[in-house]
């Protein structure tokens, strides 16, 4: 091949020596190696390398040499002229040439712009400090590797694909790494909440700290960065800050020479810009309104452009061109098996198929739309990703295999999720029966040693499930797991709802045994069958977590029934009722006046006394609630929780203060009990009463906890109910002092909180477990009682915040319409 031969070829100039540009050149050479004389300008002083493999270079799992795609020899062999480290600074479309930073002018017949994209820097003070970098090229990797040698603390801003790979790489190099992510869950564009949770847990296990909802305010430091300050005032120490919040197409060259540029350089399906002799590929382009930051679309664009340049001289010869890409994602973090593809944000209703395997840490979710796969998230077992992705891209109709789709292509009939997996995953020292201190190892051992076959057998041998009985479901699972097919199941226990196979009792136990501290954590570990539960299980889970992890668990408002979310009772017409707390049913002129003023001011249509000695204001529109609370708060009144699965009221008689028969100060004791217990969340509503003598004017014996005063002290009763099925209380015990009453009350409430099923009143709970059990725990076991009371008080420290005060005066948007139209 002589110089002359090459001189007669058409001149193709490529701006950008990256993956998109060089893949296009390779595709062109494949089709027609002799059509063009190719000249390449690359801004980086290197040969063509695989940018997506920078993460393994950062983590030390690969070297730069491993990721070079085309070395110098390749350019020479293919007669490509490469100017590396030389920027193109202008395109002269009229003269058909480009000008470079070295003062060179290069003519072209066809020009390819493949300038890629640049990392986006968030606009906060301090981004110009030393130690602040992006993660885009080899220079950035070298900068980060240097920092890892001499410094300790790294902060990565951005919890997307690139940010997490940077965090992993820096952690591998021994740095203390914190990831700051603006959104609630990591990689929210590719993962749903469950997947995001699993990923976060995995990264945290590897020592990477993750802060979500982290809005960066500033980078702080003198010359080198020292810390990142968040808008909430927190400061995170940082000697290295990696900015990985997103990319913007490099379109300045194209814009300056007058090509059509929107977010990126606008191209048609044949990668042609608004100038027919100028083409563009890769991350710098905008095709059908989309820009791309992943590698697969770049390759597809390269093929379309090569078709156009080698075969497309006549219209119609260039083939169908580029049709846009459905993208898939894999995270390049060793040991994290994650795949995501397709659309999770589609506007139309889709159908979800979910599979969770807690023992293997697997979460799979396939989103179907019109019988086709619209998206897939696989975590922990992403091996079938390409199978799903292929069907997704083809738009294959999967209705026929819908039932087994989630199990992957290898599915064989009969294989199914194991309902005993959550129990199987427990360690042998896990305490199954808290009442009697029986571990999983004890039970499994007894089953094997004595050939036990039923829950009753296990109870007889080990005492497990012999007291409150709530672990019977777990014992049954252990039998099934240990005996396998030999196990004959008893009558099926009723699961919470169709989202799960587990009963309330199982879930309560497993939350504690597996240390589960969020709703997504429970749903994953216990293999929930729906992506985000339903109106039956979510409020139950929210309550169980709130009860078990006071101060640690963040209440999930969206898992609360409207009354608890808005702190008022919804009525049949969609208005609300408001009940201020009146401690022990005792009030004052000031309070009554404030209530009267509120009724006048807000034209409240109806005022009614309740059965629990409170005043109920009816017919209030949602928007007015915060203003009414403000006025009531000003008069010293707080929320009465008449709306909650919570302590409602303590009803009292006047006691010995006024009554000639009274034996004790019932009003004062009632007020003390209410001050002790208000604000606590319980499985169902919880009512109390204090009567000053056995005449029982406070009707205490149909309450959940009742005090009947006698000359020598106080009789305590529990488990009464005045509802559909009236139940009179059982006598718990008799105590001497009002301090005893408070301690027994706290202990009883805590036992109910910890043991009853969500929406189970004390009456059916006690019928189920027996008053003997309650007496054993509260009366006979002094240390146990004190521990229960202590846990109650600890939880109350967090619970006793007036929810009205949190909204009063504030312009909480949730109470207002989103918009008024017309």
């Amino acid at each position, binding site marked *: 091949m002589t110089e002359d031969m090459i001189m007669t070829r058409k001149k193709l100039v490529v701006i950008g020596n990256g993956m998109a540009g060089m893949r296009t050149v390779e595709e062109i050479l494949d089709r027609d190696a002799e059509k063009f004389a190719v000249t390449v300008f690359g801004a980086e002083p290197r040969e063509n390398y695989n940018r997506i493999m920078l993460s393994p270079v950062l983590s030390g799992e690969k070297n730069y040499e491993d990721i070079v795609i085309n070395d110098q020899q390749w350019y020479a062999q293919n007669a490509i002229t490469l100017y590396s480290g030389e920027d193109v600074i202008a395109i002269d479309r009229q003269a058909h040439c480009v000008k470079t930073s070295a003062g060179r002018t290069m003519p072209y017949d066809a020009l390819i712009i493949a300038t890629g994209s640049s990392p986006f820097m968030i606009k906060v003070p301090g981004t110009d400090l030393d130690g602040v970098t992006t993660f885009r090229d080899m220079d950035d990797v070298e900068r980060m590797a240097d920092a890892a040698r001499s410094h300790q603390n790294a902060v990565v801003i951005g919890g997307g694909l690139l940010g997490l790979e940077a965090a992993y790489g820096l952690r591998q190099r021994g740095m203390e790494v914190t990831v700051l992510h603006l959104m609630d869950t990591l990689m929210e564009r590719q993962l749903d909440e469950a997947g995001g949770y699993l990923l976060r847990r995995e990264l945290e296990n590897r020592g990477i700290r993750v802060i979500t909802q982290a809005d960066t305010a500033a980078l702080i430091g003198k010359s080198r960065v020292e810390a990142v300050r968040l808008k909430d005032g927190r400061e995170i120490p940082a000697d290295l800050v990696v900015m990985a919040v997103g990319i913007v197409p490099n379109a300045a060259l194209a814009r300056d020479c007058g090509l059509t540029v929107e977010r990126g350089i606008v191209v048609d399906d044949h990668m042609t810009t608004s100038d027919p002799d100028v083409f563009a590929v890769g991350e710098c382009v905008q095709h059908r309104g989309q820009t791309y930051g992943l590698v697969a679309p770049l390759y597809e664009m390269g093929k379309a452009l090569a078709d156009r340049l080698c075969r497309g001289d006549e219209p119609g010869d260039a083939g169908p061109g580029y049709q846009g890409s459905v993208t898939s994602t894999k995270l390049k973090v060793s040991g994290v098996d994650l795949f995501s593809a397709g659309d999770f*944000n589609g506007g139309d209703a*889709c159908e979800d198929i979910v599979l969770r395997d807690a023992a293997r840490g697997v979460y799979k979710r396939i989103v179907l739309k019109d019988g086709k796969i619209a998206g897939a998230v696989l975590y922990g077992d992403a091996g079938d990703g390409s199978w799903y992705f292929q069907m997704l891209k083809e738009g294959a109709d999967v209705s026929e295999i819908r039932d087994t789709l989630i199990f992957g292509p290898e599915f064989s009939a009969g294989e199914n999720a194991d309902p005993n997996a959550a129990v199987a995953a427990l360690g042998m020292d896990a305490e199954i029966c808290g009442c009697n201190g029986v571990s999983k190892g004890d039970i499994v051992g007894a089953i094997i040693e004595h050939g036990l076959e039923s829950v009753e057998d296990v109870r007889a041998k080990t005492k497990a499930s012999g007291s409150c009985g709530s672990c019977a479901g777990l014992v049954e699972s252990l039998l099934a797991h240990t005996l396998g097919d030999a196990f004959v199941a008893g009558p099926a226990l009723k699961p919470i709802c169709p989202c799960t196979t587990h009963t309330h009792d199982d879930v309560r136990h497993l939350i504690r045994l597996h240390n589960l501290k969020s709703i997504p954590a429970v749903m994953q570990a216990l293999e929930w069958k*729906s992506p985000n539960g339903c109106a039956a299980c979510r409020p139950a889970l929210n309550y169980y977590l709130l009860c078990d992890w006071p101060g640690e668990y963040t209440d999930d408002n969206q898992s609360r029934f409207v009354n608890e979310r808005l702190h008022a009772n919804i009525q049949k017409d969609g208005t609300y009722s408001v009940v201020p707390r009146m401690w022990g049913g005792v009030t004052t002129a000031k309070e009554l006046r404030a209530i009267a003023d509120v009724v006048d001011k807000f034209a409240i249509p109806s005022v009614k006394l309740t059965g629990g000695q409170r005043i109920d204001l009816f017919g209030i529109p949602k928007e007015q609630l915060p203003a009414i609370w403000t006025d009531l708060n000003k008069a010293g009144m707080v929320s009465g929780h008449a709306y909650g699965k919570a302590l409602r009221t303590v009803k009292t008689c006047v006691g010995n203060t006024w009554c000639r028969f009274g034996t004790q100060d019932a009003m004062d004791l009632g007020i003390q009990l209410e001050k002790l217990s208000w604000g606590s969340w319980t499985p169902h509503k919880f009512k109390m009463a204090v009567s000053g003598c056995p005449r029982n004017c406070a009707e205490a014996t149909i309450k959940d906890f009742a005090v009947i005063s006698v000359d020598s002290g106080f009789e305590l009763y529990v488990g009464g109910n005045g509802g559909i099925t009236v139940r009179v209380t059982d006598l718990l015990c008799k105590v001497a002092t009002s301090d005893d009453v408070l301690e027994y009350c706290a202990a009883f409430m805590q036992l109910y909180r910890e043991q009853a099923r969500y929406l189970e009143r004390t009456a059916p709970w006690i019928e189920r477990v027996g008053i003997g059990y309650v007496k054993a725990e509260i009366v006979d076991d002094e240390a146990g009682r004190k521990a229960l009371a202590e846990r109650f008080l600890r939880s109350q420290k967090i619970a006793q915040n007036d929810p009205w005060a949190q909204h009063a005066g504030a312009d909480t948007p949730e109470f207002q319409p989103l918009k008024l*139209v017309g």
Partner: protein
Amino acid sequence: MSSWIEIGTVDDIPPLGSRVVRTPVGDIAIFRAARDTIFALDDRCPHKGGPISEGIVHGEQVTCPLHNQIIDLKSGAFASGECGQSRTHPVKVENGVISIALDVSQMAAAE
């Protein structure tokens, strides 16, 4: 005749939550369901008129706060298959901004 009306952003609505748009033809509940899918329905349960905007959202359904009827957000129909439907309205989301299509002539008549 319908026209698109911008009503707010996706972020204005809590995930798995709802906000109400007040119009001359009644309140419209805007839901942010799983995967940030947005739906707009009349804020009336077809059962007894309950404000479905205050229900618990799960998947692409909402449970009415008054009597626990489950309504499919896409169709406005009861998930149980019983008769009755809450009217749905076209929605689009562009750059996080939600617009709904409302029948303007009906609105004028209502005024």
